[in-house]
Structures are given as C-alpha cells and as structure tokens.
C-alpha cells in the first residue's frame, strides 16, 4: 500500500514532462510536416529562441514586474476585502438578503466590459489594472468566505459553548480555523482571476506589462514573440497558483484537501 502511494505521488512528476514533450512534438509536427504557416503557428524552436532572447532583455523583466505587481496588489486587496465582506455577510443573514440582488447583478455583468470605464476613471497607468484584478478576484473569495462562516459545525459550536469559551477564543480556536479552508479555496480561484484581470486591463490600455507585450507583438505581427509572451504568462500564472496552494499546505495541513493528496 505504501508503495502504491509512493507511485501515486510521483506520477504527476513523470506524466507532466511526457505530456509536455508530446505537446511540443505535435506542435513541431504541425509546423514541419503538415506545413501550417509560420504566421499562424511558429515552430517551437523559433518560439524558444524568441523566449531566450526576451529573457535576456531587461525590458521584458520590467514588464513582468509591472504585471506581477498589479496581480499581487490586486489579489491582496481582494483577499482582504473579500474576507472581511464575506465574514460580515455570512454573519448577517438579513444584510446578505438585502444586497443579494445587487451582488447577482454585478456578477452577471461581463466585468471585462468595465475596463474602458476604469481607464477613464483611473488612467492608463497601473491603477486601472489593479482595480480590474481586484474586481475579478474579489467575488470568488467573498462567496467562499461567506459559505465558510456559515458552515462552522454545530457540534463544534456546542463544544465551545459548553466550555464557556469567550467570543475571542471562539473566533481564534473555532471560527477562524474552520473558515481558513474556504478562504484558501477562494484564494486559489482568486489568484487566477487576478492574473486575468491585470492582463485584460493591459490589453485595453497602457504601455507596460505582459498584456501590453501581447498586444504590441500582435500589432507588429511578430508571432514568435507573441507565443513567447504567452509562455511567460503561463509560467507566471502557474507559479502564483503554486504559491497559493503551497501556502495552503503550510497553513492548513490538517485539511482534507491537503491531506488526501
């Protein structure tokens, strides 16, 4: 049984490189054998060259820093505000009921359409992108926290009440720990949405960040650079997601979502 578990643990580390190689193989095959135009699909090697060139260029890193800053700040604000609002709404059923129609309405609006408004309000700088990241990341976090606050186990509450626990002790030893898994579930979605928010913001306005690089390489019809930027974005997004799940592992090692893996 232990052996099988060991293999299960290693499996992704073996399968992922294989899948990646397979992907690159199919890609190369499409270019060199099927003969897809270089404009539409540059060869992996070309993209690789372009990527190496970009990574050597300090200008690229400046763009990465801009995007990273927008994402992290937007995510942090979303995490704070989402957790606070989720906790308040989770406790006050009447308030949640009062604002629910407004929340649903806001959720259904395609928020990407708001970017031009934010550009008018906050300018072409980083602020409009940060606002976009906050708005996208905030909802999943708030909804999860709201659910978390509501799902504190009744039996657990009885234990604390039976022991005559104070408000503060109940928060520290019961409510906070039982809400943490929900905060992390929200954060895992939130970080992905924050990246999307920042990139989309950069698409539509401004002159810095990886989203801007995508648009500018598109405008100059530079497909290898375009693909290279996408690779950088994918890596950046993965690393950020990994950071959140790692934090989760460290903070709530006891939780099923961590322990069962």
């Amino acid at each position: 049984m232990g052996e099988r578990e060991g293999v299960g643990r290693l499996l992704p580390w073996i399968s992922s490189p294989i899948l990646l190689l397979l992907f690159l193989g199919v890609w190369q095959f499409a270019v060199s054998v099927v003969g897809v135009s270089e404009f539409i699909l540059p060869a992996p090697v070309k993209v690789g060259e372009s990527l190496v060139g970009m990574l050597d260029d300090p200008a690229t890193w400046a763009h990465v820093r801009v995007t990273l800053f927008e994402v992290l700040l937007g995510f942090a604000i979303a995490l704070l505000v989402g957790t606070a609002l989720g906790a308040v709404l989770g406790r006050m059923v009447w308030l949640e009921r009062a604002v629910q129609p407004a929340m649903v309405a806001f959720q259904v609006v395609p928020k990407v359409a708001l970017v031009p408004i934010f550009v008018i309000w906050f300018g072409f700088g980083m602020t409009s992108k940060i606002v976009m990241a906050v708005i996208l990341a905030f909802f999943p976090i708030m909804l999860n926290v709201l659910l978390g606050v509501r799902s504190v186990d009744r039996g657990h509450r009885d234990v604390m009440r039976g022991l005559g626990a104070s408000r503060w002790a109940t928060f520290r030893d019961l409510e906070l720990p039982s809400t943490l898994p929900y905060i992390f579930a929200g954060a895992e979605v939130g970080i992905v949405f924050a990246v999307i928010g920042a990139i989309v913001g950069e698409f539509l306005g401004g002159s810095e960040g990886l989203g801007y690089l995508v648009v500018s390489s598109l405008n100059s019809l530079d497909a290898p650079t375009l693909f290279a930027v996408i690779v950088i974005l994918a890596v950046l997004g993965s690393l950020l997601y990994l950071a959140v799940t790692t934090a989760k592992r460290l903070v709530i090692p006891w939780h099923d979502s961590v322990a069962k893996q």
Partner: protein
Amino acid sequence: MEMTQKTTVQDGTGDAAAPRGELPDAQAVADSSRPELGSVELELAGVNKVYQARRGRVEALRDVNLSIRRGEFVSLVGRSGCGKTTLLRILSGLLPPSSGSVTANGQSIWRGASRNDEALKQVGLVFQEANLFPWFTIAENIGLPLKLRGVDRKARAERAEELCDLVGLRGFEGAYPRELSGGMRQRAAIARALSARPSILLMDEPFGALDALTRDKMNLELQSIHAATGATVVFVTHSISEAVFLADRVVLLTPRPGRIRSVTSVSLDRPRSADTEASAEFQQIVRGLRVELDEES
C-alpha cells in the same frame, strides 16, 4: 433477594428525586472498587422545557425531578424523542429550561435564560459525535478546556499525555483526528471532557455511532474511567442493556411530554464484566425495564 429498588413516578407529582434511603449503601461500601457515593451533586427540580417550534409548541420535558449523588453513575434511557438530549443540554448549559431549577453542588446552572459559567466549570461534556477539531492534534483537542482557562502549553501537554494513558490513546498525542478510528475519536472526546477535572461528566449517547464490539469495549473502559476519576456521570442511551450495565441507577423517560417514568437502582457488583451481563440478576433488570418501555406504547 433484593437487588433492584424501583421508584415509579406517578403523574409528575411523585418525587423521583433521590430515593436516598433506598440507595444500596451497604453494597457500595462493601465493594472497594467503586467510588463511595457522597452528597447530592446534581439536582433537577420541577424542570420543564417547551420548544416553540414552527409547527407549534413541543413539550419536551415536564416536571423533571432528580437528584444525583457525587460519584453516582446514572443512565437515562427512553425512546427516541423522549427528551433525553434536551435534558442533557439543560444540564450542560447549552439550552435554558423553560422553568424549574438545576443546580450543581448548590450553584444554579441557569439564572433565567443565562447560563452560570462558574457552576458549569464542574461539568464535562461528551456528545454522540466526537466533535474533535480537525485542526488540532489529539493532545491539543484534549487540552482545549485547559487552554480556555489559561493553563500554559506545557501543563496542557502533560495533562493530555496523562489522559491519553487513561483512555488508551498513548502514542496518538500528535495525531490528527482524521487519522483515528471512530472509537479512538470518542476516547479522545472523553479525555477532552475530563481534562479540566470536572466532577460531573455528561454523556449523550457517546457510543451510539460505534459498532457493537467497540461499544462493549468502550463500556468496560468507561466503567474503569468512572472508577478512576470518581466523577458523577449522567449517561444517555437508548440501549437498556448498556444503561443497566453501567449504571447505579437507571432513569426511564417516557415521551410526549418527556418525563421520568421510573428510577431503578442497579446494585450489581463492580467491576462488571461480560459475566455480569450473563447473570440472572442483570437479565431480570433489563427485562423489567423492557416491559416497562413496551407498556407505555
């Protein structure tokens, strides 16, 4: 041979409270392995509970009178819905009674609808679910009552270790609850209830979710824990044989409205074992209670 004394309660006016003179004192003293019964520790007088449910009033308890002596083991039995949990929640400070008084060593547990935390410090609680906190290790769970009282970390760890020994969880101090079986979790819950050294232990069907074999084992262990701690125990169950096996007195409740129908003294020798259950006296008491329970419906 006089081995059971029964007090049948008529119409709520009779005093089911402590058939004191009838307690089998002579045998209690003769048997050194069982704690000597002392003065009255828990007292319920004229306790009523009415739930205001959406569908109307539910009279869950009517005029419950009972006094329990220090070190005594009392089992509460009755069909599902007869108010056992309600009674235990009133005793444990989780649910205010509609009227009546509940005292622990002379201190009121309830002052109107507000609980008296001071009086409840003497009380430990075990539920049907272990209700351990998954984010705490077994030792941390056991130490929780002490943590809430400001006992330092080191003393908590020591006490947890001591209790793990008592309930048979040695070596599991650092484990998380999910790593334990149902029976082990319930042991940890018992250890948690005992950690602040309460003189009263209230248990609501603590082994109800366990399989029969584990349950028998837990009953034996509960018996020795009772002997070791000398705690007063109120034990709720719907199993008559479990109730008789453990108890000094078995209180039978009847439903709608929930009230005490009878109190039966059980003076079987302690420590009790599988042999006890095979004995004629044991079976006679169990049969008597079964008949009574059947009569009501």
